[in-house]
């Protein structure tokens, strides 16, 4: 008999596709180049100490790098970021799963998660400062407050969003609760969990910098504060450039892991999820 072989939307294969990367990156590169050109001309015309031209910023960045300042503080910030994000991710996904699976846990915690998400996270910095003093632990605390809660709610959403038909199918084949969780719910929830992790990474970067600016001891944030005190606008912007690049790379890394683990998601659904990235808060 005839097998009607129709290929429906092809899921993106995991891994690096050089050609697709180039065609996606080209317009962005052009846009950024135009922006830089505008920046340069505007800054030269409107000569203000707080608005240095792009060239001056790059120059300052080279100087700072040569002095070794950038590298040490970058390493400091990165280690804060990685540790803070790791803790947020593990605890956040874990709590999110508990809340997603057990109604009672969700009922107990949902308003607190929502409150922590809505409140300006940096207000909690003094609390960590009070307990841990000047140092890394306080910054980690700030990073966790910044990023954990968005990871939690996206994980809860992910678990609840699993298609009931799939779960029922599992039950009909006599799956145990454990099998249902590991073989159906977890894989099905993975895409949305990763959306939460991606947003969480964006927030973690902010938490790192803001925390470092408040505690003002180590890292890129501290460099920004001290440069600001010296009215060195070029240095501030130079560090900001580094921060932006770090943020974009970090988020891209999350996306790469995401693509490897959820390569089965068809491209239309992927677009829908990209829309959700629009509000990291």
């Amino acid at each position, binding site marked *: *008999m*005839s*097998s*009607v*072989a*129709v*290929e*429906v*939307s*092809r*899921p993106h294969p995991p891994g690096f596709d050089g050609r697709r990367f180039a065609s996606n990156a080209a317009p962005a590169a052009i846009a950024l180049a135009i922006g830089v050109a505008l920046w340069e001309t505007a800054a030269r015309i409107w000569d203000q100490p707080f608005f240095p031209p792009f060239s001056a910023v790059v120059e300052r960045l080279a100087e700072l790098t040569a002095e070794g300042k950038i590298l040490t503080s970058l390493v400091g910030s990165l280690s804060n970021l990685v540790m803070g994000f790791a803790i947020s991710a593990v605890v956040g996904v874990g709590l999110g799963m508990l809340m997603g699976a057990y109604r009672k846990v969700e009922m107990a915690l949902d308003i607190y998660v929502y409150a922590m998400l809505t409140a300006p996270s940096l207000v909690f910095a003094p609390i960590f400062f009070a307990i841990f003093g000047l140092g890394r632990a306080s910054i980690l605390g700030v990073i966790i407050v910044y990023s954990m809660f968005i990871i939690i709610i996206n994980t809860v959403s992910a678990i609840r969003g699993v*298609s009931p*038909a*799939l779960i*029922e*199918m*599992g*039950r*009909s*084949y*006599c*799956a145990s609760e454990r*099998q249902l969780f590991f*073989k*159906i719910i977890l*894989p*099905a929830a*993975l895409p949305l969990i990763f959306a939460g992790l991606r947003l969480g990474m964006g927030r973690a970067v902010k938490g790192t910098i803001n925390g470092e600016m408040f505690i003002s001891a180590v890292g890129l944030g501290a460099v920004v504060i001290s440069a600001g005190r010296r009215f060195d606008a070029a240095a501030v912007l130079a560090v900001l450039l580094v921060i932006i690049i770090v943020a974009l790379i970090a988020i891209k890394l999350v996306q790469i892991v995401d693509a490897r683990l*959820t390569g*089965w*998601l*068809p491209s239309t659904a992927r677009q829908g999820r990209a829309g959700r990235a629009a509000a990291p808060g």
Partner: protein
Amino acid sequence: MIEITGLAKTFPARGSNAPVDALKDVNLTVQDGEFLTILGPSGCGKTTLLRMIAGLLPWDDGEILVNGRPVTGPGPERALVFQSFALLPWATILDNVAFGLELRGVVKAKRYERAAELIDLVGLTGFESRLPGQLSGGMQQRVGLARALAVDPKILLMDEPFGALDEQTRRLLQEELLQIWEATRKTVIFITHSMEEAVLLGDRVALMSPRPGRIVDLVAVPLPRPRAATVDAIEGSAEFAKLTAGLWRQLREMQLFRRHSAQGRHRSSEPAA
């Protein structure tokens, strides 16, 4: 053999919705190796009934016996085929077909072997390492069928399995299902809202009333078996036309009756001429 006696189910009130009497006094006996189709209007509770037989939904009154033993939950002798296919989108076709066996702890080599057999049976050889997202609807449902057959159930429960497919694919799959069933002779309970499908596939057609659902008629389908090779002839036959027309007459009456009684209530509130 499946024996259902006095089955009733009411869904409790939820939020602002009133409680729903889904089924009331359902009585049905299905013989071994029989292909029974259940036909009824939308919302009559046929899916609810199937889920109860599958052991996925509790009921309020009556009993369901499978081979003399009461149903207490899902079991290895019953397998479900879903209207929405319910395939794991992240797993290959091979893994999907082997899923039921995997849940039972069958070792990889054995379950892949069995899965490969069934993939061949439904005509999907060569697609083992594809993902469901890369297959058409008809092919996905074949995977669903293969998965159900892989666990070698005695009873196949099919919930409008071709309802999400276009007409042409549906017809092809009906022929294929007949072929497979004639080779394996499982007991099948097949839910449909199409009279043609009910008569073409079934040995008997159980007609369900609108909510609260009851089995109001059991129509025997004396068309000869096997049918897979002669589907066109069967659909053209006078017997077929008579059976489908009769079923439609009954269905239409059931639903028009409801509309008329609703209108009657409405009319009586108008002022007298």
